[in-house]
């Protein structure tokens, strides 16, 4: 086949399957500005920044124009520049412009492009606009005053995460990006993965900062500040500062943290090794008994929340293991005070994570003891970089230092938790070890990679284990549908919400695109191959933790400290529909709420409601019932759920409505047996 070319500003550029002109232009070395274009998302074509002149066709938005052989295009003309500047001016005129105090300052595309294109003044008057700020969730802050309506977050949540928490509402001047009914992210189905924030070009969606809390703990001389650093953080820092290896970046980070005033510095990879041992043991147990398979991993809190909201029937299949962050904190809060000789109430546990959802996880009530969270503060990589900046730390100048003991020892298995496929590989290394511990297979390249869904088969003992590794929740959704329909079947499934795994977490420094994630992925595996120990079972301090505190993997003590349970979770806060009001003012009434949330709806809750009304009518006590339809009592496993005067009843199927009325409702109405069966 002969080669195809187009001409960009007089230069021949070969076509190589690029989907749009924009990609070709960028390949030609011209960084066309864009707001609404992301290679991983569908093309929106709204920002107009990427316009070029195409010979014979005039001005075209290159992001939505397919390239064809012989095209001649000019990127830099009077017209294209005028359009870009005009578009920018319009955006700026409708923007709050609080740059100096914005957490995106210096990382904001609106800022950069205004500067790059020389927009120095805005000729349009600023209209009145509202700053609606949502800072109610544990992880993210939304500020409508900084939104430029590029729609990137909408498409990210819908296309990559398969959820669709955000959408455009209203139109024309009133158009804005909103959750359902303008609720807070804390009150909707958002899983707090923060991927929307990774693609927001401005400061309209940012990571919620806990920097002030961290400084406060550090400045308090009574407090001993213990910090754990997650595996993916070292890869991002290495990439961000241009340090050759993740190990080196980690060493420099340790030095920096000591200078900033953190007292003890540990590695979450140690806890990841512990997770591997607990989760691997759990898996081998399930594999032997054939129960609760496939086993889903549970170290990604965004995935856990997603499963709690969308797949109540799968919760039993999730590993009961806490995530490495929470295993670390439980262990630290319980045993470190004694080891370090400090009062428990004077120890603060901070974690440094690639992830916004970890902030939500740390705040889950089940991870607190007497109201005190196991993990006191969660800082993202972004926040730790800012703290280093605030403290004047010159990262590149620092000599690396080593971690503290005992939780500073890790194996390579604990490090790869940071990349998609890592947890699966860590478990495989352990599971294939065999009772005599002779098998020493370390690298399982079949589970590595960046594809959204990967499958592999590996012999574990005499069993052929089928694995799936998925990243991105839309991919998880697709996979789960196949598992539920029986189209696919697996023994173990690793799910990470972020594309690429935690290396692409929303707490990581920007740019956080697929190219950055790929670089970080390489760094993580390099880090792994440098370790002497690469099987979690070989971690000497994990072994010691069992001897000293935990007895054996999955023992009773280990369960108490390192495992957890999940719960059904509603997607939207507080809504009830009045279906029928009681008209009888004299007699005692009964209030019945039938759940029509998804879990119950799919189990026939609407028919339950309908039949309930019909039977009550027939029996002649409709006027004494107040009937409401409600959304999710967080009892989805026991659906259809019905609440009667505040008491929850499970499994009220259409078939059991008669029995339910007779046994639960009628006694409350003071109706005796005589009424029944008529």
């Amino acid at each position, binding site marked *: 086949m002969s080669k195809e070319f187009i001409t960009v500003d007089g230069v021949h550029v070969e076509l190589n399957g690029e989907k749009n002109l924009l990609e070709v232009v960028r390949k030609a070395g011209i960084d066309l500005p864009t707001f609404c274009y992301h290679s991983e998302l569908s093309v929106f074509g709204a920002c107009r920044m990427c316009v070029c002149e195409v010979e014979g066709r005039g001005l075209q938005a290159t992001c939505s124009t397919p390239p064809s052989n012989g095209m001649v295009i000019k990127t830099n003309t009077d017209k294209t520049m005028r359009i870009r500047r005009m578009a920018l001016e319009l955006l700026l005129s409708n923007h709050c412009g609080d740059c100096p105090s914005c957490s995106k300052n210096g990382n904001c595309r609106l800022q950069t492009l205004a500067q790059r294109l020389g927009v120095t003044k805005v000729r349009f008057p600023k209209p009145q606009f509202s700053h609606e700020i949502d800072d109610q969730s544990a992880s993210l802050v939304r500020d409508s005053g900084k939104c430029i309506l590029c729609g990137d977050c909408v498409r990210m949540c*819908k296309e990559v995460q398969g*959820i*669709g*928490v*955000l*959408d*455009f*509402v*209203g*139109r024309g001047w009133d158009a804005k990006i*909103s*959750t*359902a*009914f*303008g*609720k807070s992210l804390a009150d*909707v*189905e958002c899983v707090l993965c923060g991927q929307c924030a990774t693609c927001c070009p401005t400061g309209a969606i940012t990571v919620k900062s806990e920097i002030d809390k961290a400084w406060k703990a550090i400045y308090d001389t009574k407090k001993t500040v213990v910090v754990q650093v997650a595996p993916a953080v070292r890869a991002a820092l290495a990439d961000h500062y241009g340090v050759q290896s993740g190990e080196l970046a980690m060493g420099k980070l340790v030095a920096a943290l000591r200078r900033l005033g953190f007292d003890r510095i540990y590695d979450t990879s140690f806890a990841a090794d512990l997770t591997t041992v607990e989760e691997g043991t759990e898996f081998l147990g399930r594999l032997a008994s054939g129960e609760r398979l496939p086993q889903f991993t549970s170290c990604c809190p965004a995935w856990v929340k997603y499963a709690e909201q969308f797949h109540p029937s799968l919760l039993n299949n999730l590993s009961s293991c806490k995530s490495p962050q929470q295993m670390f904190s439980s262990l630290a809060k319980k045993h470190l005070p004694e080891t370090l000789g400090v009062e428990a109430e004077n120890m603060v546990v901070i974690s440094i994570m690639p992830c916004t959802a970890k902030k939500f996880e740390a705040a889950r009530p089940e991870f607190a003891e007497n109201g005190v969270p196991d993990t006191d503060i969660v800082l993202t990589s972004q926040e730790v970089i800012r703290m280093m900046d605030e403290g004047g730390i010159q990262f590149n100048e620092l000599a690396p230092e080593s971690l503290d003991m005992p939780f500073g020892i890790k194996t390579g298995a604990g490090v790869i938790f940071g990349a998609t496929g890592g947890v699966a590989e860590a478990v495989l290394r352990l599971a294939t070890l065999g009772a005599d511990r002779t098998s020493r297979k370390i690298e399982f390249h079949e589970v590595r990679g960046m594809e959204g869904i990967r499958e592999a088969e590996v012999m574990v003992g005499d069993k052929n284990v089928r694995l799936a590794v998925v990243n991105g929740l839309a991919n998880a959704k697709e996979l789960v549908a196949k598992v539920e329909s029986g189209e696919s079947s697996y023994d173990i499934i690793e799910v990470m919400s972020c594309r690429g795994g935690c290396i692409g977490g929303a707490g990581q420094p920007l740019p956080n695109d697929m190219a950055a994630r790929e670089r970080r992925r390489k760094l993580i595996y390099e880090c792994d191959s440098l370790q002497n120990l690469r099987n979690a079972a070989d971690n000497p301090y994990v072994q010691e933790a069992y001897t000293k505190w935990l007895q054996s993997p999955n023992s009773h003590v280990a369960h108490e400290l390192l495992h957890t349970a999940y719960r059904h979770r509603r*997607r*939207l806060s507080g*809504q*009830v*529909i*009045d*279906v*029928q*009001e009681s008209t009888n003012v004299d007699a005692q009434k009964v209030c019945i709420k039938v759940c*029509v*949330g*998804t879990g119950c*709806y799919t189990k026939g809750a*609407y028919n339950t409601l*309908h039949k309930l*009304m019909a039977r009550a009518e027939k029996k002649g006590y409709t006027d004494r019932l107040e009937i409401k*339809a409600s*959304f999710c009592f967080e009892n989805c496993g026991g659906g259809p759920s019905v609440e009667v005067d505040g008491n929850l009843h499970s499994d009220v199927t259409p078939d059991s409505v008669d029995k339910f009325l007779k046994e639960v409702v009628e006694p409350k109405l003071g109706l005796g047996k005589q009424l029944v069966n008529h």
Partner: protein
Amino acid sequence: MTQAVLDRPTGQERSFVRVQEIIQECGASESALIPILQRIQDEYRYLPEEILSYVATVLDISPATVCGVATFYAQFSLVPKGKHVVRVCDGTACHVRDNRALIESVRKRLKITGKQITSDDNMYTLEIVNCIGACALAPAVVVDEQVHGQMTGEKILKLFNQIDAKDKEAEK
């Protein structure tokens, strides 16, 4: 928006059962969303938040998407509407014929202030709309889908009185 929905009048029995019927008749798929919303609005006279969530549940789409569609089209309202909808045309022809005075007398008669569009007794909703194509009759008003031309403050008050009287009659 949320506030208005929460404050919605009690004592107006709405037929939730109809919602399920409507969804079934239109087909429970995303492509039927607009007709479903239209018919629910006919039923409730507006789109209550909880009902939109229910529609999202049944159609298996995100509530934000349903909300987006419901707020995009001018025909939908997320706040309760009165029993009678009064649309005053604000097209150019009506505008130059002093529809401002007309709007003012309607607002006064219905005792609505600020951003309020529905009277406290939930009987009337006032909407200011773009050209309704009755320019020859300017200023024009549409009351419950019926066009009334060459309106004056006086004429419209008379119209309200007639409607009120008819409602009273029907109540008996």
